[in-house]
């Protein structure tokens, strides 16, 4: 099995606010991320696909195909968007790194038909990231 990783970057704004909590609780839990006008990040997404190289092309999957999937599923949805208001898949969820990574996993997994989605790593900054992967019988594990 070979792992192949493609990296993309997108910029988006968000804020952390739970309408079921009081203003004071929101401030206490989320701190400056609770600023009502939001703030933004340059996100870096690393998508890793696992598989056997095709005997003729030598590829696990065509990087062009992966690039198009990422453009359609991630860039068009999230790049230069407000994650709280413009991404339906995140509606009702706090757009933390963990939740965004999970949403991206769920968007990509059914689209990757050559090889198998192995890991999604989303950096909100160089010092903060979330990993998403499958464990167990059908999972790639770690």
């Amino acid at each position: 099995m070979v792992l192949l990783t493609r990296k993309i970057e997108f910029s988006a704004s968000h804020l952390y606010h739970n309408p079921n909590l009081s203003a004071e609780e929101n401030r206490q839990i989320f701190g400056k991320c609770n600023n009502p006008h939001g703030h933004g990040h340059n996100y870096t997404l690393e998508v890793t696909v696992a598989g056997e190289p095709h005997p003729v092309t030598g590829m696990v999957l065509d990087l062009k195909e992966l690039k198009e999937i990422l453009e359609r599923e991630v860039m068009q949805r999230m790049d230069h968007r407000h994650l709280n208001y413009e991404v339906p898949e995140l509606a009702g969820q706090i757009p933390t790194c963990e939740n965004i990574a999970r949403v991206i996993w769920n968007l990509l997994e059914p689209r990757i038909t050559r090889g198998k989605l192995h890991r999604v790593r989303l950096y909100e900054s160089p010092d903060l990231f979330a990993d998403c992967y499958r464990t167990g019988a059908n999972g790639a594990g770690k």
Partner: protein
Amino acid sequence: MNSALKIELGRRYRFAASHRLHSPHLSEDENFRVFGKCNNPHGHGHNYVLEVSFSGGIDPATGMIVNLSDLDAFVQRQVLDEFDHRSLNDDVAAFRGKVPTTENLCMEIFRRLKTFHHATLERIHIEETGKNSFEYAGDHLEGDRT
């Protein structure tokens, strides 16, 4: 797919510390042969980059596996306050009589961080320099030197 989706939160911290690789069980010549310039009696230092990975359920109320302010305060208290701008040999009790290689540093920091209550420590990764990094996941030691 009937396998479970797992989410981890990764966070990087930095600290600068000095160390000297020297074993009291070896002679001076042997120490120099084994550790080379890392055996220089006055020590030397590194800018360490510590990467920690925690897993757990995402709290639906916060969207988080762990609140970063809790995690940052914990790592500050458990590691950075005691290691940053210190001599690992002289200022950290765990390295009295133990060579402060980054392998041993990984194991010591893992021991300290696994007591975090809010999430499960999966592994830690330490860059001693941009070229040398080490990883420890508790049961077994995985190191890579590139």
